[in-house]
């Protein structure tokens, strides 16, 4: 749980990656999926998630679809064409970042 600050800068990448693997998702589903995948290690707060989703939508990386689910309406998010490209870029950046961090925190391991 103490790692929340480390994850903060990766929120957009996490959202994009999840949408890449799940076609379309709604806000609450994203928070729960992250909790499930990280076994509770990472909890995305709604206060951080929705501004990030709205920003990605405003930047044209996400499309929105509203559908009726049971007795209420639900707003689904899915990747646009440029969102798919941006996901690949962000994941590359993330891999590069992880490699660099690995070299810094565990130089021996990264040489092997």
């Amino acid at each position: 749980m103490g790692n929340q600050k480390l994850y903060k800068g990766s929120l957009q990448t996490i959202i994009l990656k999840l949408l890449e693997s799940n076609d379309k998702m709604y806000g609450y589903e994203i928070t729960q999926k992250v909790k499930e995948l990280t076994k509770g290690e990472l909890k995305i707060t709604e206060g951080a998630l929705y501004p990030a989703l709205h920003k990605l939508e405003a930047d044209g990386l996400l499309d929105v679809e509203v559908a009726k689910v049971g007795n209420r309406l639900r707003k689904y998010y899915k990747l646009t064409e440029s969102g798919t490209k941006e996901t690949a870029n962000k994941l590359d950046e993330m891999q590069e970042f992880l490699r660099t961090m690995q070299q810094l925190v565990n130089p021996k391991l990264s040489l092997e």
Partner: protein
Amino acid sequence: MEKRYEITEKQLVFLEDFLLRKYPGISNETKIELIDHLVSDFEATTENGNLSQYLSNELEFIARFVFKGVSLMKKTYRKETWEQFFKFFTEPKLLLISISTLLFFYFLNETVTDKIVYLVTIILSTLIFGYSVFKGMIKNKELKNLDEVKFLGNEIWLPFTLVQLLGITNLCYSIMKYCWLYTLVALFIIIYGLSALMVILKHKKIILEKYKHLLN
């Protein structure tokens, strides 16, 4: 998604009334997303099905959620219009339109009277404005109260107002003494108008697709 409880129809109506009472100006899109989130969370976490108790713990989140929506919408349309505007000077096909407009106003300014030049500017900008209103307006009763529909036409007012202001203040005739200056002003009016029109048409399509369930 695991549920501990299923919200009742009565509680759902209560939640919607609560939001409308507390935030009368809340947009439809914000309301849809907020209600869905609150209900999903309530159904997954409640111990006793007490919605009022749940809402009292979420007041701060609800307030933040509501106020961020509107300003983002306006900013998005403005940002996209400016991006489209700059594309008129960077993309070859659109650049042709910009150059043609520039040359048209320059030679018009050189050959006819100031009154005619202003008249042509006003006619062209009115045509773009009129076409935007006619083609871009969403008239469906179910959609016209959405924030994204209300603010959709905001940017088209800028060039239209500018051209009227130039006429009312007679500023246009002072500017026309400098041929290139008026040409640049007219170019801005026409190209910004066209950019706003393109953004309106693009978003009209997106909005109609997004809310097709309300139209069926």
